[in-house]
């Protein structure tokens, strides 16, 4: 249509042809459903270029376990924990990265794939999500977020995770490979679980559980009610702690069990952080003080007013998980870009932070763009990437497995045409523990189905403009 966009199109086509040429000798990939046809504006579909004819997708299914070592050669590798590696090699076997670097020898027997021109990034991690627990808004039967009552520390997210949810497939095809699925509601909602976006059962999909205990900090409306609610929270933790001491000191005698307090023992033993939903200034400060008194590890989620208390947060090394970067200011006097600049301000003040998606499961796949917004408003690009990979992985205690590309970590990563935070980038392929994920998601499936309708009626109509 125009010189400029024409250039882009030709450029991508050229790149695509190169890849196709290289892939020619690499053999077919496993699995079907790789028939995603890009529009005329974007011929860069590796699936198409790999020689799979456009056709209606086969039923997509979870990927089989990795079969044999694979070496990806020539891509720019972004390990996140270190500088980018140009023309690097990444080798993985049995779902685990065995080598990553510029001067890696491809092991004998490994399937070698030439990915020159492409980029490798760790899969993105959404550390606060309703994934698997939420299907359709306003339709309670499809939602399993809020258990009855105020105190539900024993509610476990992973057991209610619906592997058939429609929302995992678009998430992984836009780069989000791990979600921390979190119960909601009440004072103590339950424990979260780090879930992988592919698998046959919730058990297979669970990367780690529990990852944290979800606490909803009381809302500071009426001062007296607010104080009372905090007192209730203190009492609750005190009761749980006394149970733990009783059980700990029981020396074999029978202590009548309490499922609620049983679930909180890892918190007191220092194994399980508490994720506290807190947005207002008072909530954030009071939650931090409370956690200090209780001697529990805290992760603030929400963090809307965290920019007002950066020194406090930095001094006490309290991590914050921001959940609304692409938002609006909550107060009329605040500048229009208040939420956009918040990550940069936290970064400059030395506050440890990550960026989460909104909690609506269908929108999990927008995570990268939340982080990208912060880049437009002053956050260094590499920090924005860390805020959706390494940092949330640390907060969840899964940074030994995901969030970076290092030897010994899970082969859970993305093959892209560029920075996943940018719109023009295409997420070409995702791997979860070395398994090559079917990139046909529910959005694309609808596209394909109804594109077929147009084709049956004689092809697309005239240009819409």
């Amino acid at each position: 249509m125009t010189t400029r966009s024409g250039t882009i199109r030709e450029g991508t086509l050229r790149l695509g042809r190169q890849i196709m040429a290289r892939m020619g000798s690499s053999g077919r990939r496993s699995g079907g459903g790789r028939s995603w046809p890009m529009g005329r504006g974007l011929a860069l579909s590796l699936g198409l270029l790999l020689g799979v004819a456009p056709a209606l997708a086969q039923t997509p299914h979870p990927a089989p376990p990795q079969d044999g070592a694979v070496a990806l050669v020539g891509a720019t590798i972004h390990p996140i924990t270190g500088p980018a590696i140009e023309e690097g090699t990444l080798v993985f076997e049995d779902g685990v990265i065995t080598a990553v670097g510029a001067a890696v020898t491809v092991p004998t027997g490994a399937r070698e794939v030439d990915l020159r021109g492409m980029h490798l990034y760790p899969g993105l991690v959404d550390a606060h999500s309703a994934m698997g627990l939420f299907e359709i808004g306003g339709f309670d039967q499809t939602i399993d977020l809020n258990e009855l009552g105020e105190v539900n520390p024993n509610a476990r997210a992973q057991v209610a995770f619906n592997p058939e949810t429609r929302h995992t497939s678009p998430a992984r095809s836009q780069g989000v490979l791990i979600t921390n699925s979190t119960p909601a509601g009440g004072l103590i909602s339950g424990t979260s679980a780090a879930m992988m976006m592919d698998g046959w059962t919730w058990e297979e999909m669970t990367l780690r559980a529990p990852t944290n205990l979800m606490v909803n900090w009381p809302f500071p409306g009426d001062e007296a009610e607010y104080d009372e609610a905090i007192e209730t929270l203190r009492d609750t933790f005190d009761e749980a702690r006394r149970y733990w001491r009783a059980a700990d000191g029981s020396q074999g005698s029978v202590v009548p069990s309490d499922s609620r307090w049983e679930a909180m023992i890892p918190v007191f033993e220092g194994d399980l952080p508490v994720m506290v939903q807190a947005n207002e200034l008072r909530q954030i400060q009071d939650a931090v003080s409370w956690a200090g008194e209780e001697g529990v590890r805290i992760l603030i989620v929400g963090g809307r007013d965290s920019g007002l208390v950066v020194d406090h947060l930095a001094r006490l090394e309290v991590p914050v998980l921001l959940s609304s970067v692409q938002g609006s200011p909550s107060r009329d006097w605040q500048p229009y870009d208040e939420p956009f600049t918040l990550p940069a301000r936290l970064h400059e003040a030395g506050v440890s932070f990550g960026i989460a998606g909104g909690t609506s499961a269908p929108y999990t796949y927008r995570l990268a763009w939340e982080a990208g917004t912060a880049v437009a408003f002053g956050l260094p690009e590499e920090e924005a990437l860390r805020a959706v990979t390494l940092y949330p992985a640390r907060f969840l205690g899964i940074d030994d497995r995901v969030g970076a590309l290092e030897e010994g970590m899970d082969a859970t990563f993305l093959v892209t045409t560029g920075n996943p935070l940018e719109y023009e980038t295409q997420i070409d392929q995702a791997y979860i523990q070395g398994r090559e994920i079917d990139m046909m998601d529910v959005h694309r499936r609808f596209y394909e189905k109804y594109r077929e309708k147009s084709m049956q009626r004689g092809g697309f109509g005239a240009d819409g403009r």
Partner: protein
Amino acid sequence: MTFRVRSTLSGWVLTLAVVLAPLSLEAQVVTEATPPVEGLRENTPGVHALVGVRAVTAPGQVVDDATVVIRDGLIESVGAGAEPPAEARVWDLEGYTVYAGFIDAHTGMGMGSPRVEERERGPAYWNPQIQAFVSGAREYVHDESQAAGLRAQGIGAVLTVPQLGIFRGEAAVVSLGEGRTGQRILAEGPAQSVSFSRSDELGETYPTSLMGSIALIRQTLLDAAWYREARAAYEVAPAGQVRPERNQALAALEAHAQGNAPLLFETRNEDELAWTLEIVQEFDSQLWIRGSGSEYRVPHLMEGFSVPLILPVNFPEVPDVDSPESALNVGVAELRHWHAAPGNPAYLADRGVEFALTSDGLDDPADFLANVRKAVARGLTSERALAAMTTVPAGFLGIEATHGTLEAGKTANLVVSDGDLFSEGAVIRDVWVDGVRFPIEPSPLTAALGEWSLSVPGAPATEGHLRLHGAVDRPDADLTLGGQSVEVSSISVQPGARRLRMEVDAGPLGHEGTARFSASLSGGELHGWAELPNGARLGWHGTPAGEVTPASGNGATASPAPLDLPDILPLLDYGREALPEQPEHLLVRGATIWTMGPQGILENADLLVEAGRVVAVGEGLDAPSGAQIIEAEGRHVTPGLIDAHIHSGSGGGINETGSAIVPEVRMGDVVTANNPWMYRQLAGGLTTAHLMHGSANPIGGQNVHMKMRWGLPAREQHFEGAPRTVKFALGENVKRRTERYPDTRMGTEQIIRDHFMAAREYEARWGAWEADPSGIPPRRDLRLEALVDIMNGDILIQAHSYRQDEILMLMRVAEEFDVTIDAFHHGVEAYKVAPELREHGAAAVVWSDWSGFKIEAYDATLYNARLLHEEGVVTSLHSDNSTIAARMNWEAAKMVRAGVDEEDALAMVTINTARALGIQDRVGSLEEGKDADFVIWNGSPLSQFTRAEQTWVDGRRYFALDEHRDLEQRVARERGELIQFILDNR
């Protein structure tokens, strides 16, 4: 019955206004009355003389040392130093000021018990909110505590308005004096009261929204005009004509509809004022306004404003800045309104606006005078203030011959104050209404103040000293007995009975506990007795031993001088001090320009603008001399972004849910400039938006196109020349309401079809009448009129939709009537019927990727817009969300991720949107002759890492990043100053 009312005690001025007899006996007015007298007649002379007063006979006119003579409820004379008539009861009021009784031109006096259950009797209007036939006089039930509350503020006569409905009925002018209702009513029906809000007491039906109220007001006035014609046409020749209905509400509105009697609109904010002026313009009606106190926020409406204005003094509460945390939630808008509101009356007076002041709108009418004083402290002259409470309302209400000044022959309504009533601390002692005196604050027992020598025979310490000082009504006491200081725990002075009471520590009297001292003040001495804790009693006696000066007033402090803040519009946190300049010539040079027109994307190109319009886009354009030049190397320039579906900017809700079919309601009627979202959206490059009605109705209200002219009045933000559009809605939302048809998608189809047919028939009826205008004329029906315009293509259809079945259904119904659906909004499943949409000619205005928030959104796909676009449907992206409307470039960018060509993606938030909205000739691309609405970005508009640096509308720069940083500083500074002002003066 005689007693002294003039008295001098101990050389001090003691003014006692003690009335022992019931008031009604004292002031019988000789008048013709219908009720016969039972028992003995009472004819005490109804003559009074207020002597030695400073009489403010009219605003700006004062007679010192005046005698005001009242006879039988009327003022007989006002003269300097005149002798009172012998039969007069004389009131020595030296040092007091007398004003004409105040008139409150807008109250609900006596309207507290409406006969709701009877409102549908007789030939009522179909809509229960139309209560035009109600008579305030006939509804009146006297409420003495309400009357006393108003009288305590000096008010002797009021306009009372019925309180229920939209057309609420005829007001009445009422005296707050004594007597039967028939004696109170001064005038019936000087105005018909109109309000914008529905009364739930009359039924929770149409209208449920402010725009619905406006539509109903317009329809009712049209109906009133039609009713007169229809009745007349029928009565000329009843035979052979179908009898038109009888309607008491429409009959009551005849004079108002013809402009012969005023409509009194009660406005609650400056927006409602603007809307009122527009409605009335259409009908050429006489208008009165009950203001809101926010008039200063709309200076453009106040220039030359000549409508009778009745202004409340309902100044806002001090914003909660008690703690730094609570102060976080207070912005400049709230702080400024609190700061500015008391200056509203002075602001209007300075602009020559004539107004009356009313206690209406106050939570407690007892705040009335205090707030008037605040207005005076903020520059309203006492003279104007007095006029606004006397002569001006008298003129509005047509009672100037009898009320409003102190003149012989006028009604004896007076206010007696212990000083200039418009200075801090002055207190109203008495109010006279119709010649009857109502004591308000008892005269203080000033005689009690002073130094007293005490003797307490029988006590251990028999000599003592008492010093009473401070405020006369609640003095402080220093007591010593036998040289020892004694703690006084409470003290009170009862002026009528002239009694002093104290509770003191009984220790010096030799007892544990409290001793209670009480004394009668008589002959300049205190004659007391006391009761001790052990039940013993003793007497005491006090003689004068010195004077003290009474503390003035009520301890009120003077109002602090207000801060000097720049005028900004709108009066919100990021308001502007001035409309941005429109340079005659403007050249943006060296940018990557996305023209979104046939020129495509041009590298290193220039954009030339003249007087708000694009002149040329191209390389190496010459700048006319004097042109403003922007060097934009490395920058991208795009047309201003357009959002086809927002709801921010409504000043009165977005859904008229009261009826399934409401195309007569118009979002354009309720736009507000108090819209903080607009600035944020400008900052994201949005220059045009389509403010839409909600989705509660198969055929909803009309929408309005807006230009983001931040700082201009709401009406000037309307996109002039844009076509009219209407909201249709399908699916879940319209069938959600129980007890309102439809409950299914089947019913939705049928009700739309049925109304299309009705519209055709309505058009035919008018056609027949125009061909042969005889007999009873057809009635103008705004709903059907709008439907006719819709079907004739004069109003573009913008249909909310989710599922493919309903999209297809609406197209097929429309086709049956040869109507085109111009655009489907949301269209979550539009991709499933893309070919059908193209064939029909409908545009698709969809979300980038909303999904899963309800069942009908479950089949959403990120590729919706892409497939529609590939099919050849004009495809646009909308936000339906105030936050997302501020970053529509990123919505377009998502389509790049979905595989759409970059320029095609940007078209979805520029030119395609303009097409879907029928404004493509003005906006959406940068082409010669189009509006100079454009955005300068610091990179590609489709990059996640880009932001808008400047946003221009009509060749004016409404947003610039550097200017924004200054604004941010100003907001911070002003907040700080205003919060400090509160802290300093609390």
